[in-house]
């Protein structure tokens, strides 16, 4: 090759500027969010870890390292075990109900009909209402004296005129009540997520199944559910996160009572750490939540991706 030609086509290998380099750009665009998350989630999280191995209390200025003492005392506390059991019951039962209800409602809402927008608006209300106020609404519904549920049940002669069920004051009834409120709060979100997933399934598949002679149940079990699996897992994941970490419903309705029968880990951590002033003990209890959630989240996301067929 001659020198002249080489000179003419001299490479213009200018270093690409960051605005065009995907990697540099990715770093620049991600940095603020990651910095923020690092400072305001990562750092406090580490602080929480530190508290959990110290003797921190609300008033104290100086903490001492106490090793796993807080975890030990948490584990030795029967209330902790009761709260863990309650957390699991509360989460599993309400999520099972949420998913079944959500799926059924989504199927009923799938085909357009007059007034669907209104129905959707009404269904969404529980999800957007501030839950602290929504829960107080339920407190009024469950009121020992003025409960509308009692009144309706008496009017329908389901219970006698002198029966006064104390919805939030009897152990099993209290758990059922907080589960009911939690389902009320989370079913709308599950419904719309599942509805979106259903709309994403091509109509051809439904038609093919109908031509192949699949009836309602067969269609549901062989076609609908497998195709919806990823979306339903996502709905489930969010439901579990909201349920497991949230304490507002229980804080407002029962404060964990009666006799800690509705106490869950999140509320126990709050009562111990903030209201009881035992920061270290509260942090130790709260930390039990995280590994469980992380495992559930990773599991659900992996399954959702694996189950993805369309």
């Amino acid at each position: 090759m001659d020198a002249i030609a080489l000179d003419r086509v001299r490479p213009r290998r200018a270093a690409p500027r960051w605005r065009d380099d995907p990697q540099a750009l990715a770093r620049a665009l991600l940095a603020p969010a990651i910095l923020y998350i690092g400072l305001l989630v990562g750092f406090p999280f580490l602080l929480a870890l530190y508290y959990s191995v110290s003797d921190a209390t609300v008033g104290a200025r100086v903490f001492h390292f106490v090793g796993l003492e807080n975890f030990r005392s948490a584990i030795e506390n029967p209330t902790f075990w009761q709260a863990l059991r309650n957390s699991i019951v509360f989460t599993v039962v309400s999520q099972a109900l949420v998913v079944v209800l959500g799926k059924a409602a989504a199927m009923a809402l799938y085909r357009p009909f007059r007034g669907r927008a209104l129905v959707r608006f009404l269904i969404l209300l529980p999800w957007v209402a501030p839950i602290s106020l929504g829960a107080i609404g339920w407190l009024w519904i469950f009121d020992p004296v003025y409960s509308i549920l009692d009144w309706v049940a008496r009017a329908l002669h389901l219970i006698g005129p002198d029966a006064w069920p104390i919805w939030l004051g009897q152990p099993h009834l209290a758990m059922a009540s907080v589960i009911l409120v939690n389902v009320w709060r989370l079913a709308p979100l599950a419904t719309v997520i599942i509805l979106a997933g259903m709309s994403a399934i091509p109509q051809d598949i439904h038609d093919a199944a109908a031509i192949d002679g699949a009836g309602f149940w067969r269609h549901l079990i062989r076609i609908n559910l497998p195709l919806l699996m990823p979306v339903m897992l996502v709905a489930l994941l969010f439901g579990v996160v909201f349920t497991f970490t949230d304490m507002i419903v229980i804080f407002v309705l029962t404060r964990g009572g009666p006799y800690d029968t509705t106490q869950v880990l999140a509320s126990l951590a709050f009562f111990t750490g903030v209201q009881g002033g035992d920061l270290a003990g509260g942090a130790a209890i709260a930390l039990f939540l995280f590994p469980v959630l992380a495992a559930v989240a990773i599991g659900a996301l992996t399954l959702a991706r694996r189950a993805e067929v369309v």
Partner: protein
Amino acid sequence: MIAPGQAPPGAAERPRIVPRAEASAPAPRRGDARADADPAAKIEARALSKGFAEVSAVAAVSLAVRNGEFLVLLGPSGSGKSTLLRMIAGLETPSSGDVLIDGAVVTDLAPRSRNVAMVFQSYALYPHLTVFENIAFPLRARGVRGRALERRVLDASAAFGLEPLLRRKPRQLSGGERQRVALVRAIVREPTVLLLDEPLSNLDAQLRATAREELREFQRRVGTTAIYVTHDQVEAMALGDRIAVLDRGALRQVGSPHEIYEDPADTFVATFIGSPPMNLVRTAGALLGVRPEHLLPRTHFAAAEPITALPVRVGRVEYLGADRLAYGTLDDPWPHDPVVVRWPSTIAAALRAGERQQLFARDTDLKRFDPGTGRRAQ
């Protein structure tokens, strides 16, 4: 007359197309030029390679596109044709090799600094902008403002009958209208080269023929050098000044549609181009290729023409209106390889299943390929 196992005499007489662009010697229009210093080359790929996760998508492709030329990159899916186009556009970074535009290396330049235009398979019209703003977009990005901007958009739209559509959004356009908007948006900035990535594949068959014609007419009018990617050989033959055939990342042949069809450089090109594809017959030491329409009755050849007898046992006949296709096997003394015969309806002779037809082909229509490499044998 060629006996089985004997080389067809025509094969040695003609210069062969070597499937490397540097040596795509018989340049049809602008004389012989080596790509290394091709003064007419508008766009050049030099030993361009791209690997994705250890899979080589494009392997050392060298190719020169001449000024004003319409070059088609043709290949099956996975052949690397789109990757090659995207490397020229600057949307992919090559693993090695260089892209040259107007003689300057642009390999490390961002797409916007190359002055290339591209029409995508989906047209990629900006859904949030009107047709006017879509066409104005590349001009605005280059700092054209005010009256100058408006004039250029309006001129370009007027030239291609888009004025009535200027205030619409892309979703309100038909498929053909979208293509026109995409093309006008591409050329309004007067690019060095127009890159087209299967722009017709989203149209239905009927619209596609019209759109193809419109596209070719469009390119002739604006005179912009164009590189067009497709997997459809009919499109390639109809549109291309030259066709570059790719397979599994490698360039197999570059040439005019006529060269590609009549003188395939290897068995891949021979069997990829043409429908039905070229018949390949095993002979001693070579593969012998013959196009289905070249197998004819004796009466179609002059007495003095050098021809070879290729008897065919017909298995099945398809009547396609303008053509008849016969599927069968070659008969003794040839190996019983499957062959397809294609006769236009102008040939009256009968073609019946089960019969043995004494067919012939011109010796010049018999192409020899190396059975090991698949390349044309000299």
